[in-house]
């Protein structure tokens, strides 16, 4: 091959070499950040304020017992909100919290517009404490609770004023479920909450929807809750 031919070949392959370099850089970076996808990797505060929609491109699934430990606490909006569900699909990875024992603060203060299905079936006694508080989340594709109604709520949706859509799977069986500060919830979302309330046979139980959300329900719909032993606040 002559020098001229070699130079031509180099020029033709320039973009491939550049792309290969970028890929190697990406692999090296994310292999360290996610410890090569180790299931027991600790994600506590992993993607905080320095992370934006421009640099969050995970290589491995975010899963295991520490997947949801304040993972996206204060995820930044410096460059706009992130549709987390869409981004994970683009990256070909999943955020699987079904084995996560800690889910406190998982999206606390996060500038994320949409989150995919979040499972709380393995959450510890602090359950969903502050999990979506102060976030800009508009849509939670699905919130999966334990079927026995033992998932704990406290401040879960505090000042979560942008929340519009949520689907609940499993049962709400404990006091503390409060969406009073999410007045924009759709009727379908409210019905999903009412239908998820565990039927009680005694005791006093309350779920807080707030005046704005209560106004979207008919008396018959409110009775879905009250007849199951739940007081609506």
């Amino acid at each position, binding site marked *: 091959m002559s020098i001229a031919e070699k130079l031509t070949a180099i020029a033709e392959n320039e973009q491939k070499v550049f792309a290969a370099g970028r890929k190697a850089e990406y692999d090296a970076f994310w292999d360290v950040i996610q410890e090569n996808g180790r299931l027991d990797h600790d994600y506590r505060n992993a993607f905080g304020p320095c992370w934006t929609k421009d640099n969050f491109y995970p290589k491995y699934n975010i899963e295991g017992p520490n997947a949801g430990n*304040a993972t996206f606490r204060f995820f930044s909006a410096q460059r706009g909100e992130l549709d987390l569900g869409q981004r994970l699909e683009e990256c070909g990875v999943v955020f699987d919290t079904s084995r996560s024992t800690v889910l*406190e*603060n998982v999206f606390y203060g996060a500038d994320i517009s949409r989150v995919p299905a979040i499972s709380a079936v393995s959450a510890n006694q*602090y359950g969903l*404490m*502050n999990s979506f508080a102060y976030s800009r989340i508009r849509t939670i594709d699905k919130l999966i609770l334990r079927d026995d109604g033992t998932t704990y709520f*406290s*401040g879960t949706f*505090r000042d979560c004023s942008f929340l519009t859509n949520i689907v609940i799977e499993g049962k709400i069986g404990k*006091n*503390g479920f*409060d969406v*009073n500060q999410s007045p924009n919830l759709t009727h379908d979302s409210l019905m999903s909450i009412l239908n998820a309330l565990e039927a*009680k046979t*005694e*005791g*006093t*139980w*309350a*779920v*807080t929807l*707030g*005046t704005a959300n*209560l106004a979207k329900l008919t*008396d*018959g719909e*409110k*009775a879905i*809750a*009250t*007849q*199951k*032993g*739940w*007081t*609506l*606040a």
Partner: protein
Amino acid sequence: MIETNITLRKLTADEGMVLTNGEAYGKEIYLGIYDSAENWHEITDGEYAQILAAQEKEEGAMQ
């Protein structure tokens, strides 16, 4: 065919007040079938704000 009348029992807070049973809070309350109006009492909006602030502080301390 069975026809059933379902009665909703509604409590409404006075102006500037919030109803509470010690755990839940609201301006309007629709009582569940096992609940009673006696379990609810009024507090002022200011007292409610103080309770919310205290809850935030307590939860923040647990983080």
